[in-house]
C-alpha cells in the first residue's frame, strides 16, 4: 500500500478520523440502554 510522498497526510487523516469516530462509538456503547 504505497501511498506516495504524502503518505503521512493520508494516514494522518484516516488516523484522526478513526480516533474521533472511535471515541464517539465507545462513548455510545457505554451509554445505558432502556
Amino acid at each position, binding site marked *: *500500500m504505497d501511498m*506516495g510522498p504524502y503518505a503521512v497526510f*493520508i494516514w494522518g487523516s484516516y488516523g484522526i478520523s478513526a480516533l474521533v469516530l472511535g471515541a464517539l462509538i465507545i462513548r455510545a456503547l457505554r451509554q445505558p440502554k432502556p
Partner: protein
Amino acid sequence: MISRFANPQRFVALARWLTPIFGLGAAAALIIGLWQALIASPAEAEHGETVRIMYVHVPAAWCAMAAYTSIAIASLISFVWRHPLADLAARSLALPGAAFTVLALITGCLWGKPDWGTYWQWDGRMTSVLILLFIYIGYMAIWQTVEDRKRASRLAAITAMIGWINIPIIKFSVEWWNTLHQPATISMPDSPGLAPQLLLPLALMALAYTLLLGWLAMRGMLAEIAQARAARRPAPAASARVEDL
C-alpha cells in the same frame, strides 16, 4: 408517523431493532468502503494518492451539514408541535455533528497541504465549515447553560432554527468574500466530475458515515430515555434497622 412515535415506549420499541441495523450497516459499509478507499480504488490523475483523503473528508463534511439540518428540523417539530422526542433527537445529534465538523476541518487541512501547499485557505467551503463549528458550539452552549430543561428546549430550538436559516446567507457571503480576497482556482474539488472509480469509495464512506451518525443519535436518545426512567424509579426503601445506623 411523527405523532406515532411521540410515545417514548413506541420509539424504544422501534429503536430496539432499528439501531443495530444502523450499527451493523455502518460497520459493513465502513469495512467495504475502507477497502475500496485505501486499496481497491486507483489514485487520481492529477494529485495522486492524496485523493484518498477525500473519502474521509467529504463524508464528514456531509454529515456535519446533515446533522445540523436534522437538528433544525427536530427543533421546528419541537417548537411547533411540542413533540417530546424531537428535543431528544436534536440534543443527541449535537455532539456527533460537531465532531464530524471538526473532522471535516482537520482532514480538510491535511488534504490542503499536499494538494495546494497550505494547511488553510480562506476558501468558501472550508470557511463555511469553520463557521458551522461555531454554530454548533453556540447551540450546545444553550443546552449547557440553561438549567430548566423546558426553557432550554425552547431557547435551543430558536437558536437552531435561526442558525439554520442563516447558513445559505453565510455561504453566499463567504463565497462572495472569497472571490474578492483569495486567489482564484483554489477550492476543494467537488464530487461531480469525478471518475466513477473514485465515486464508489466516496459513496460507500458517505453511506457508512451517515449510518454511523444515525446510530450515534439513536443510542444517545435511548440513553436519555433510560436515564429518565431510572430517575423515576422509586429509590430502594431506606433501611430502618438500628444496627445500620
